[in-house]
C-alpha cells in the first residue's frame, strides 16, 4: 500500500507529461556589414542561438533541427560576390561544415539536421566581394530561420 502511495503520483506525473513533439522556429535577421573591397573582403552575418530563444522549461529537452531556411541580401555593385552558409554546434568555434548559397535569394539546407542544436549553436552567412566601388554596402539584411522540434 505504501508502495502504491509512492507509485501512483509518479504515474500521474509521467502520464500528464506531453509526449507529442512540438514544432518550433527561431528566426533571426542580421546585416553582413560594410566590406572594404580593396583586395577582396568578407562581410559576415552571424546568427547566434541563445537560451532566451527557447520556451521556458524546454532547455533540457533534446531538439532536432528540421531545416535551416536562409534568405540573403547582396552587395549590388559587386557582381563577383559569393556567399557561404556555415553551421556551428552549440558552443563550438569550429564549423560542422559550410555550403555555398546564392546572393539575393532564398532556400533551405538540410545538411545539418543531424547535428546537435540548442543554445550556443550558430550560423554564419559569409559574403565575399572583390572589385567594385569601395567600400561595398549590402542592400539589405540576411535572415535565417532554424526550424526544429522538441
Amino acid at each position, binding site marked *: 500500500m505504501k508502495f502504491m502511495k509512492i507509485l501512483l503520483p509518479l504515474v500521474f506525473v509521467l502520464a500528464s507529461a506531453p509526449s507529442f513533439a512540438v514544432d518550433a522556429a*527561431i528566426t533571426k535577421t542580421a546585416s553582413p556589414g560594410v566590406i572594404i573591397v580593396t*583586395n577582396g573582403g568578407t562581410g559576415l552575418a552571424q546568427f547566434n542561438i541563445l537560451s532566451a530563444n527557447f520556451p521556458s522549461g524546454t532547455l533540457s529537452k533534446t531538439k532536432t533541427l528540421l531545416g535551416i531556411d536562409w534568405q540573403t541580401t547582396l552587395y549590388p555593385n559587386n557582381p563577383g560576390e559569393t556567399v557561404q552558409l556555415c553551421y556551428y554546434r552549440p558552443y563550438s568555434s569550429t*564549423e560542422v561544415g559550410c555550403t555555398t548559397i546564392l546572393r539575393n535569394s532564398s532556400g533551405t539546407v538540410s545538411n545539418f539536421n543531424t547535428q546537435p542544436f540548442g543554445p550556443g549553436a550558430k550560423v554564419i552567412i559569409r559574403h565575399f566581394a*572583390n572589385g567594385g566601388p569601395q567600400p561595398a554596402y549590402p542592400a539589405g539584411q540576411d535572415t535565417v530561420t532554424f526550424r526544429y522540434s522538441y
Partner: protein
Amino acid sequence: MKIDDIVTAYVQNVGMPRKNEDLINSSHKSASVTSTAESNQSTSVSLSGRAIMLSRLFGTQNSNTEPPVVSGVNGMDLKHIGMSPQNFLTTSDRALLSDMYEYAQQQGADLQNVDQLAYALGTYRQSNDGRSMSSFNGGNSFDLEGHQLTVSFNEKDAATAARILNGDAINSTKLDQGFLRYTLDPGYGALSNTSDFEFMEQMVIKFSDVGAKQMSLPSKFSTFSYRVINESAVFTASKQILNPNPASTFKPQIINDNGKWIVLDPSVLEDNLFEQALTQQKMKLTTSQNEMIVNTLFANDHKVSKNSQLFDVLKLLSIPGTTKKP
C-alpha cells in the same frame, strides 16, 4: 635598372594610381630590385610578376610586408571565416600567380582575370582544400517549397570544364589538380568560382608541360567580365517535393522571431504552469484569444499590459511584459 623599367611599364599599362607612388618611390624596393637584377636576369622577370601579385592581392609592393601564409587546416572556424581568401594562398600558389600575372601582362590581358582565379584558389585553400564545404548537389539543398535543387554549369562552362579535366595539361600543370577537380565540379564551383573558365584553361595549359604549344593568349582576354554566378549557374528543381519538412508548409506552434514570441498553440507550453496561471486569473483561453495574441504580435504592438492575458503567456515564456531583442 631594367627592373624599374618593367615595373614602370606595368604601372603604365595596368594603371593603378592608388599604388603607383609606392611602387616607384619605394627606396627599399629599388635596392632590392637592383641587387637581384644585377645577379640574375631571369629573376628580374619573376620579380615583376611578384610585384604585381603583391600589389593586386595584398596591396603592397614590399615583399617584407607581404602577409604571411595562413594555414587553411582550421577551415571556416570563427577565427578564420572573416579573413580574406588570398591570405591562405600558399607560397607556391603565390609564386605561380606571380608568373600568371607576368604572363597576362605580357599578353595584354586584363589582370582581373588572374585576380579572380587567385580568389577562387584562395577560397579553396581557406576551406581546408575544400574539406569544409558541402556540395550543393549533395541532396541537401531545397527551395522553400521543398523541391530539391541541383546546379550545373551552363553549356559553355561545362564544355570548358570537360576540356580541362580531360586534357593532357591537367596531368602536369602547376595549378593544383585538387583545386581544379574541386572547382570544376559544379556542386562546388558553379556557385563559388567567379573567374572566366576559359582563362583558367589557358593558365592550366600555359603552366604545364604542354605549355610551350601555347604561344599567345586570345585577344578576348584583354577585357574582363565576371562569371556572374546567377547567370552562369543552371539550377534544376525536382518535380516532386523531396524535403520531408519543407518551409512553406511548416506550421510551428511557437516562434521566436528576433526575440519576439509568437505563440500559435499555447498548449505546447508547460501544461500545468499554463493552466495554473490561467486559473489564478480565472480566465479561459479561447481560440479567439489565441488569435488576439498572434494578431497583437504580428501587428508589432508588443507593449503588453501587466493585466492582460498575453502578459501571463509571455511571463511563462520568461518574457517580462515586453518583447526583447536577443
